[in-house]
């Protein structure tokens, strides 16, 4: 195989973050729901999937077992989205940030303390691919392709949303909720629906990650994942369709794949120095972009061009 396992898992991480950042684009970029608890919804999907897959005696095997557990995990994350979304519905931006951050912290705490189910700080094994080709690298490559297909689907959906009345509604609600309501738009219900579905999909990405790593660790539930998605989205441009893709590639992609794979770094850096360096570089990228290009590298939404393209000048 040309692709080594290290590269495949790096790519998996990048593509997964593009997916998360695209979902965050719908929440934050269009509807202005400042979700700082991305890792919470992702983590609910990850752990719900892991616990269901490993701890429950299913009467059927893979791939049905995977499909059922992943579906239930997606629903669990969606229900969390519904509940959190309902709690934060009337809060201002600060309240939404604190509320979602608090939710993510609670998820990490629960995963750590519920040792009987999750293995706590020791972690939990027993996950596997829902198929087996006999070669781990091939298994992983196939799983990466499945993820690419899913994220491509999300990207296509986002692209369509921008070109249809639903996207306009989200932008309107995000930009002036009282005005949208005064035109008869059910703003609260729309936001809640969006938050539920996007949170559910974050959960699905979590479940897929669980299969890829096959070992659940509570350390993955830290703030790093949320930060990577937020930084990626903001660096690329939070209001643009391709902002998430460009931003994640330029931050996580460049650091995790290009720098770590092709620049010879001392081996003893990998446990402590590199994760630290990563956060510092992301923080720096964020500051630079916010100072010199506050709307991200891709900039404004450009509805003017889009309207001309769709409806003619």
């Amino acid at each position: 195989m040309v692709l080594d396992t290290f590269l495949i898992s790096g790519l998996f991480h990048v593509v997964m973050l593009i997916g998360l950042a695209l979902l965050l684009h719908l929440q934050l970029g269009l509807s202005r729901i400042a979700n700082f608890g991305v890792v919470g919804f992702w983590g609910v999907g990850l752990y719900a999937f892991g616990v269901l897959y490993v701890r429950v005696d299913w009467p059927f095997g893979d791939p049905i077992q995977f499909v059922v557990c992943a579906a239930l995990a997606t629903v669990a994350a969606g229900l969390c989205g519904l509940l959190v979304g309902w709690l934060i519905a009337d809060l201002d931006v600060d309240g939404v940030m604190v509320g979602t951050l608090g939710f993510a912290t609670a998820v990490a705490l629960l995963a750590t303390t519920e040792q009987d189910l999750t293995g706590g700080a020791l972690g939990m094994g027993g996950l596997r691919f829902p198929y087996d080709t006999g070669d781990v690298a091939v298994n992983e490559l196939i799983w990466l392709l499945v993820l690419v297909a899913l994220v491509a689907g999300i990207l296509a959906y986002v692209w369509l949303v921008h070109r249809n009345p639903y996207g306009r509604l989200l932008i309107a609600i995000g930009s002036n909720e009282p005005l949208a309501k005064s035109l008869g738009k059910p703003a609260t219900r729309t936001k809640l629906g969006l938050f539920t579905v996007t949170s559910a999909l974050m959960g699905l990405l979590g479940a897929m990650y669980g299969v890829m790593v096959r070992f659940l660790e509570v350390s993955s539930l830290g703030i790093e994942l949320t930060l990577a998605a937020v930084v990626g989205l903001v660096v690329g441009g939070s209001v643009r369709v391709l902002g998430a893709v460009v931003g994640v590639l330029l931050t996580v992609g460049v650091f995790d794949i290009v720098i770590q794979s092709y620049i010879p770094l001392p081996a003893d850096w990998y446990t402590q120095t590199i994760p630290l360096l990563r956060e510092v570089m992301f923080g720096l990228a964020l500051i630079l972009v916010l100072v010199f290009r506050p709307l991200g590298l891709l900039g404004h939404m450009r509805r003017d061009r889009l309207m001309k393209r769709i409806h003619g000048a």
Partner: protein
Amino acid sequence: MVPESTTTVRPELAARTAPRPRLTLANVVKSFAGRTVVDVEDLSLGNHPIEGLIGPNGAGKTTLMRLIMGSLKADSGQIRLERAGHRDVVLSRLHAHKIAQCGVVKTNQVITDFDGLTILDSLLLSVTPERREFPLHLMGERATYEEHRAEIERQLDHFGLENTRRLALSAGEKKLVDIIRCLLLKPAVLLLDEPTAGLPGEVTQKVMDAVDDLAGNGTTVVIIEHDLDVIWNLCTQVTFMAEGRVMLRGEPSEIREHSTVVESYLGQGHV
């Protein structure tokens, strides 16, 4: 011989005589931090096509309209909408978006807009039906535009707004777009909060023509204005508010007869 014009009833006059949508307010009270800002015992709007609402700054006119729209909740009292062919609804029990769906809409005194949306976006948003805004309905954009194109272009022509695919509107343009959004909804009740403030005279006239047209088609219009000439010209019923309460109510001529009361609030030379 009887001239023909007196034997045929003009359609807009026929519409004027049909029962109009009517708003009834009973004991509506609203206070902010212990200060009562609106206290309306009994007010019925819609017995006339275009009603005026006047009063000094801070009288509670905007607050009263916001209570009707549900963007503010009253402390107590009831606001009802009666509409021929529809069930009576208690608006004060509904969410703001439901009130708008009942056909009650308002233009804003303070300029409000959706930033990031073009003029065309803003107008399309207004006319798009809910089913087309469903998250999985991903084909409805062109159809929505084609269905409403004629109406949208008619309004844009009327107001002389050009190049609707652009962002960054001037304050006056935002005000006009706010009004057109409401006109496109063909509302049962249209509340106008100082629609002409900040607009040049000829545009004011266009707004008034459009409003007159809508009223002729059966919409109940309530208009807040500080320019009393507009009120005397357009309205057949005027409500004078001060300190949150309805002080006077009647035809323009009757209000002008009470010039001492009105002038005591608005200053000399207004009536």
